[in-house]
């Protein structure tokens, strides 16, 4: 705090600006900060996490079509290596904050499929008791600080969480997910400037899925290597392939380590692709991208890349894969059934949770 030292540009971590790589399988795992990079057991966990998100959201699309899910519903399909790669690299006491495209991250952090599906169905057993819906997944017990619906608004919030970590002298890290369209908002600029100025333990993750709704990155941002925006805030910055869970883990691992040990922020651009429309009201390819482009990107499905890697390395058989898939489908079906049976919130809940009726409980309350 106070007068920050000028960081040397030597700490800047520009790993590559020639993305994405076109490989049929995930890369060999490299380092992930101090965490183990990979093992057959870990890889099974990653595959399970990613496949759970995929199967869950496939059923979300179905439930939306049936009218069980209402409002806006933004699917994460195609981006699962980002959530799994990042969240598998965090500690339980770290903080996560994200946008309205939040189902995948909620599941990858460990929120139960029943809880997420119940929230989507607007039921009492949802994480926000049916009051938040698709865009507002919150779980205090997991330090999951919510999906936020205003583009850019979660970035100052993350900066504030990191400020609180530093204020208390802790070694936790706050991870802030956002889409690439966020970098054009004032909130992003204001928040990153303060994080750079005050050296806060935060990792800003730009999930560059190429489109802010229907507007391509090149039609919205004056620069296209958007991790370079970090230069404006004297901030360490990097870019990685978001379809490859090992690459995500390697890149985010360094950023998390830097935040934890040096209390400095990182801007990490993760290049990924949204396989679905912006929301359920947007056709998959839409008017803004071609079917050919979509199909080209779908060749690099993050789940297929990991699965192929594991099979090539003798870590996974067809049989084991099918067994995992069947188990996950059963879990998702259970979540659906549970949510379907969960009651709607009682009408008296309408006026609950507007205010709390408590005051600060510091010991000095006795003075009053």
């Amino acid at each position, binding site marked *: 705090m106070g007068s920050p030292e000028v960081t040397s540009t030597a700490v800047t971590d520009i790993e590559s600006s020639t993305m994405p790589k076109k490989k049929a399988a995930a890369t060999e795992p490299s380092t992930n900060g101090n965490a183990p990079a990979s093992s057959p057991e870990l890889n099974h966990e990653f595959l399970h996490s990613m496949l759970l998100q995929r199967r869950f959201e496939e059923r979300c699309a179905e439930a939306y079509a049936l009218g069980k899910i209402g409002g806006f519903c933004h699917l994460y399909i195609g981006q699962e290596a980002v959530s799994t790669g990042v969240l598998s690299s965090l500690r339980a006491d770290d903080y996560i904050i994200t946008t309205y495209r939040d189902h995948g991250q909620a599941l990858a952090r460990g929120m139960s499929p029943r809880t997420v599906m119940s929230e989507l169905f607007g039921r009492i057993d949802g994480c926000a008791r049916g*009051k938040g819906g698709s865009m507002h997944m919150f779980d205090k017990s997991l330090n999951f600080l919510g999906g936020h*619906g*205003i583009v850019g608004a979660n970035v*100052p919030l993350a900066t504030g969480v990191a*400020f609180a970590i530093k204020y208390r002298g802790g070694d936790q890290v706050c991870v802030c997910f956002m889409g690439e369209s966020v970098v054009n908002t004032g909130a992003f600029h204001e928040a990153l400037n303060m994080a750079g100025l005050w050296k806060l333990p935060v990792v800003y993750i730009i999930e560059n899925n190429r489109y802010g709704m229907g507007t391509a990155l090149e039609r919205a941002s004056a620069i296209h290597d958007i991790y370079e925006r970090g230069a404006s805030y004297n901030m360490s910055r990097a870019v990685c392939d978001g379809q490859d869970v090992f690459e995500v883990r390697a890149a985010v691992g360094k950023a998390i380590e830097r935040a934890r040990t040096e209390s400095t922020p990182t801007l990490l651009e993760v290049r990924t692709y949204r396989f679905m429309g912006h929301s359920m009201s947007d056709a998959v390819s839409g008017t803004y991208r071609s079917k050919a482009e979509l199909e080209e990107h779908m060749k690099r499905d993050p789940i297929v890349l990991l699965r192929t890697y594991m099979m090539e390395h003798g870590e996974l058989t067809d049989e084991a894969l099918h067994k995992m898939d069947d188990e996950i489908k059963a879990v998702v079906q259970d979540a659906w059934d549970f949510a379907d049976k969960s009651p709607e919130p009682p009408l008296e809940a309408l006026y609950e949770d507007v205010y709390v009726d408590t*005051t*600060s409980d510091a010991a000095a*309350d006795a003075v009053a």
Partner: protein
Amino acid sequence: MPVITYRDALNAALREEMQRDDRVFLMGEEVAVYQGAYKVSKGLLQEFGEMRVVDTPITELGFAGVGVGAAMVGLRPIIEFMTWNFAVLALDQVLNSAAKMLYMSGGQFNIPIVFRGPNGAALQLSAQHSQAFESWLAHIPGIKVISPSTPYDAKGLLKSAIRDDNPVCFLEGEMLYNTKGEVPDEEYLIPIGKADLKREGNHATIITAGKMALLGVQAADQLAKDGINVDVVDLRTVRPMDVEAIKTSVEKTNRAVVLEEGWEIAGIGAQVVDYIQRDCFDSLDAPVLRVHQADVPMPYAKNLERAAKPDAAKTVAAVRKVMYLD
């Protein structure tokens, strides 16, 4: 009882609450090294250090959000806006983050934060620096809105605001900082949501808040010279509003004038009149009148500014009218 300024009363409230609870910190533009644009935070940097008294860049949206984020994980921020006129830039974080977080998280995340700073017009600051925000903020469920008129109220209410576990918008008056009043040395709190009778009378009721309460008192004193005695109900908090206090007074006097600093349309006065027509319909002997800023951006020229602002004379005229004296 010691007589101190409104500014010093606020300063004392900040100091006492920061001494009491180390989760409380102050953040904003010029609050630390400069000692506060209006010197409300004078001496706090020296006492509490730069981690707890934090100068920010000029970045209202950003630091308002930093405050809300810090509040989500257990700190108790006080965010100072140099004026509420600049806080418009931060309204997204006040409205969409602070006010709605508890509700949209299903009760998981309350936001114990105070947004504070001077509100309304001073002298000849013209259109962009002379706006009153009570009605804008009071519209929002999930926050509380306080607008104190005296040093005593300012101190007791700011202390309550800092201890409240909900987001509180605290509207001070630039023209009030130098006003003086009695403030006891011993600690006290004033409950949020309770009005105070600043003058007592039987002939009519003036309902007001914040800086306007001083005008209400001036009007009451002028009316008293003609034998007209009015209740001046200083709401002190505009959300939640003390509807009982309004009702009690209007049922006694049968006549009411609402005096506010902001514009007419959808103003605080419109809400007060709605409560009165619902709760006191049979008690009214005259339509309720309102005194407010002219429905124009604030002009610069002295004479035009005077014409645009509510004042004691306009309030006296409105009271005489509801009494059918003019």
